[in-house]
């Protein structure tokens, strides 16, 4: 049987995937051999088991209480699920690897990859809240895209207090859709797949979400969406 090194376990998020039952039988067997003999993984599995067992009891106890902040289900968004793209979807967040395979899978109908012009247009706004829809920057900050394009942007510099980020697409001040971006993904270029959108000018606003759930716009950029 193959063996697993600790670096492999970290690289493949083995602890989380094990606890979430996301491993194949072979992976599971290899990882089990590993964590019985690895201090770090043993401690993480132990804590994860504690979390999930006690967490279940906590969830049951809290079940009768209203959720403090009910989940906002943005219409038309299924983050991470890239193909096929139903016509009603406006945009989706695409993991890096999925974006790459998407490009390959599309073959002749390959979607254009639009690197946001002037990535520095997405910059920290000094934590001064800006009205949704307010366009920061000049005309040079405009990116041009079409439905079906994958757009990339970087969140630099990041908000050190962010627990996650939200990318909100709006038009004329009206929020259309949004996707959550984990800190892990925010560290890389974030790809978004644009769905069916009427041609026109849109604003992409990146907000950091702090521990207390409050949001702070950190950057924005204009996207001119053309005809497909």
């Amino acid at each position: 049987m193959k063996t697993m090194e600790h670096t492999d376990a970290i690289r493949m998020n083995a602890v989380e995937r094990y606890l979430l039952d996301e491993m194949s039988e072979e992976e599971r067997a290899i990882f089990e051999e590993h964590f019985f003999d690895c201090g770090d993984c043993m401690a993480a599995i132990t804590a994860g088991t504690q979390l999930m067992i006690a967490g279940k009891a906590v969830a049951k106890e809290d079940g009768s209480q209203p959720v403090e902040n009910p989940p906002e289900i943005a219409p038309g968004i299924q983050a991470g699920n890239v193909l096929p793209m139903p016509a009603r979807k406006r945009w989706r967040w695409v993991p890096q690897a999925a974006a790459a395979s998407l490009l390959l899978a599309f073959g002749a109908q390959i979607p254009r990859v639009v690197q946001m012009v002037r990535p520095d247009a997405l910059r920290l706004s000094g934590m001064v809240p800006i009205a949704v829809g307010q366009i920061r920057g000049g005309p040079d900050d405009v990116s041009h895209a079409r439905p079906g394009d994958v757009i990339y942007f970087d969140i630099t510099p990041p908000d050190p207090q962010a627990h996650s980020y939200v990318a909100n697409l709006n038009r004329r001040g009206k929020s259309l859709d949004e996707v959550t971006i984990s800190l892990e993904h925010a560290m890389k270029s974030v790809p978004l797949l644009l769905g069916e959108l009427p041609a026109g000018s849109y604003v992409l606003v990146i907000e950091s979400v702090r521990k207390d759930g409050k949001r702070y716009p950190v950057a924005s950029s204009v996207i001119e969406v053309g005809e497909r």
Partner: protein
Amino acid sequence: MAFFTFDDHYVRRLRERDRETLEHFYAYFFALLYHMVRRKTASDDEAKDVMQDIFLRVLQELDKLREPSRLGPFVCGFAKNILREHVRMRRHESLTDAPDRPDPFNFLKELESKEMREHVRAALSRLEPREASLLKAVFLDEADRDEICLEYGVNRDYLRVLLHRAIEHLRAELAKEPKKTPRSPETFGCLSALPL
């Protein structure tokens, strides 16, 4: 519970069924075995039977352990074999039937204790309310995880990151507790080493 380096003293005390050592042994391996066993059994009761078999078999076969430091993989090997066989027949000796022996499943109660629930609450409170709500939905296991992710507008990668953060928060919470005296391998069996 911290990673433990098993040695001759520990294994000897285990062979002697020293209560304190048995308690440590059960507590140490319970959480490691729980997922492995539970996912292959239909109920907690069935899991309990299988885990008792595992612990019992390991204790019975300790003489076959050549390197005490390899006790972890030794237990893992037995667990896999027993799960494969899915032995359910009752043994002549039941760990819980024997008087004055700890019940391995007491540690399940410990994991659900009020104290542990408070630690978990504290760990979850360090996440966004929406994230904590998502994880609770996962813990309850009442819906397919893909459906939960869809409902919350996240993907499985995000779920893994959240779980990772929650685990780290819980470990930080547990680390705040006054540390119980660490039991180094040398402390096991040191009393028995003294001449009467």
